């Protein structure tokens, strides 16, 4: 079966997490199966953030769950810190997996409403008392650990420890989820749309917090969002997905500024511009993504692509190097011109002049208000 290739993968020794040729099929009733991932491969180096972007249903959450073996992918391998997770079972898998933690889009419903915040954050420490492992240094008590991780998300154990999730806003619940994830001293944090349900002003708080935590704990992140600007702001590398396959993967600034895949370019051109003077442009993409039951042959994007030719229906394109440093899965990639979105937004000098960010960007503390 034609996957999308592995030319873009770095040597195993240089990365902390590597997924190769992941396939996931879900049962879909009446004996049918739906293919959610078809040959997805990527890697993440230690301390790096890989952003995963694409429209709903393209397989972002499935990818995240496949990394955690929840459920185990139909086929493919996931290697974390030299250990093949797909070869582990039971207790051993669960132990290794404490090193990879996840936070979700809906922080409120991922917290048990009946438990106190202190117990929620402590949960994992009671199950794995010998964690937090190498990164905790000197093995503090569980309570000290809970205090430290709550503090690192801007919350005070004495103030919030006895309270329950419903007393907190969505943004604060996401902080609690992050603290819970950090308690076990993970090396990888998977964030599945962690700010999509939050208001803009709260979203910025959480994004800045994640950047700080990444520096502080040396975290490696897999960051999923459908909002391209959010993904760009936090990622070192970015992976664009469409209908269970990778279109384009590489350094964030290359992919955003010089997209090589027609789908990436279309996504970028669809972003509403913050500048009223930016010209609108015509419909960049027609129709909706096809249903995964009717995935087109060859290139899955061909039913919406205006560059599509006969070859596109016959052969699935493999990921190949593009001029700007990323890898692209397209038979007729774009020459790597600046993206229309990047070209038509106001230059940064103008934004600065208008909004005086230079003088104002330190006006606010990065912590929660008292």
């Amino acid at each position, binding site marked *: 079966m034609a996957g999308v290739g592995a030319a873009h993968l770095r040597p195993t020794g240089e990365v902390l997490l590597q997924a190769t040729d992941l396939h996931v099929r879900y049962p879909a009733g009446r004996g049918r199966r739906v293919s959610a991932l078809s040959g997805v491969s990527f890697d993440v180096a230690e301390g790096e953030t890989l952003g995963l972007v694409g429209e709903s249903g393209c397989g972002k959450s499935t990818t995240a769950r496949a990394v955690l073996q929840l459920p185990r992918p139909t086929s493919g391998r996931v290697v974390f810190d030299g250990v093949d997770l797909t070869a582990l079972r039971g207790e051993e898998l669960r132990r290794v997996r404490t090193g990879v933690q996840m936070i979700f889009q809906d922080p409120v419903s991922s917290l048990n409403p009946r438990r106190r915040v202190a117990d929620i954050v402590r949960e994992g420490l009671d199950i794995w008392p010998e964690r937090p492992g190498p990164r905790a240094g000197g093995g503090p008590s569980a309570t000290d650990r809970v205090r430290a991780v709550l503090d690192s998300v801007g919350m005070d154990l004495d103030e919030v420890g006895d309270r329950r999730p419903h007393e907190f806003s969505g943004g604060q619940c996401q902080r609690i989820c992050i603290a819970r994830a950090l308690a076990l001293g993970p090396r990888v944090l998977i964030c599945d749309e962690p700010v999509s349900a939050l208001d803009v002003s709260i979203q*910025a*708080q959480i994004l800045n917090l994640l950047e700080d935590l990444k520096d502080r704990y040396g975290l490696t992140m897999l960051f999923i969002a459908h909002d391209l600007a959010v993904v760009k702001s936090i990622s070192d590398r970015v992976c664009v997905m469409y209908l269970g396959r990778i279109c384009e993967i590489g350094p964030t*600034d290359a992919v955003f500024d010089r997209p090589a895949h027609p789908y990436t370019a279309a996504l970028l051109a669809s972003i509403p511009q913050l500048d*009223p003077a930016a010209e609108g442009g015509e419909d960049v993409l*027609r129709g909706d993504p096809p249903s995964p039951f009717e995935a087109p042959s060859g290139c899955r994007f061909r039913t919406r692509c205006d560059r599509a030719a006969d070859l596109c229906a016959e052969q699935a394109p493999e990921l190949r190097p593009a001029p700007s440093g990323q890898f692209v899965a397209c038979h007729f990639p774009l020459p790597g011109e600046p993206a229309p979105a990047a070209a038509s*937004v106001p230059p940064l000098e103008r934004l600065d002049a208008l909004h005086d960010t230079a003088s104002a960007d330190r*006006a606010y503390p990065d912590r929660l208000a008292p």
Partner: protein
Amino acid sequence: MNRPVLVVEELHTSFATDRGELKAVDGVSFSLRGGRTLGVVGESGSGKSATARSVMDLLPAGVSATTGRVLLDGRDVRSLPRSQSRHVWGVEASMVFQNPAGSLNPVMQVGRQIAEGLRYHRRMPRRAAMRRARELLEQVGIADPDRRLREYPHQLSGGMRQRAAIAIALACEPKLLIADEPTTALDVTVQKQILDLLDRLRRQHSMAMILISHDLGVVAGRTDEVVVMYAGRIVEQAPTPRLFAVMRHPYTKALFESIPKVAQPSHTRLRIIPGRPPDLAALPGGCAFAPRCAHARPRCLAESPALSADAAAEHRFACFYPAGTSDGEAALAANRDAGRTAAGLALSDAAGAA
């Protein structure tokens, strides 16, 4: 002269909640002329939907109370007898919601739903109404309209359902269309299709449109004028190009700066707005933004700022110490020197540390 299609004067809406009266809309006024689009932006809970629903008379009578005037084409629609007002809503003024399920009946074929309004309000015969329904589906860009006419909403994709909801809203050729977060649930490529569609239809029908969104980017390129809401009030209002060039209200400015922008390189530090929006059932006195505002001075805690009248630039804002003015800069400088605002918000230079 082009007379306003919609005039809203001193609109107040409150909900009775178990924690007391909640003022969701607190003295909102604006007007809108035919063929023009007004953008309404604000974070969730700021009163955008409550404003729209109050205008459209869609709020449940038992739990909510509305006062103020709503003039549609010069008629005070809130005081019309029921027999007349039912030919206003959905006919002269109609609405599209974030969730198209709000306007679609799950157990009725799409074609019949569109035809229904035409038969009831326009007394069109069944055949003619169905023909018109087919035309409308074509107009909103639904491929294969003959097949879709006979389908049920669950057989359509999210984007197509929103198109069908738009077809229903436009069936009777309203003068005013209110679109309340019409693309918030949709993917970005489909969002662009729907916003382009609304734009095209507004021009074709010379409709007035209110486009509600939490996304400043959505209103930037699609509206003639913008109002920014916070805690049930309009805090800033200006023609769209003016607003994006000169943001006077500290909330508008901070909101804009907290948005990640694709034009910026990755890892650009975001400006944040500390804290969160106030509880509308327990609003403190003074300016509702004061606890989060870097400019806040003692006056802001004592008095509530009114929306100014700056007729020349058609730019209004409700703030004692507006950004980019000498008063505003002086307030900010004084707070920086003191290390905190009058509301006790710490302004540290060591932001991000600890």
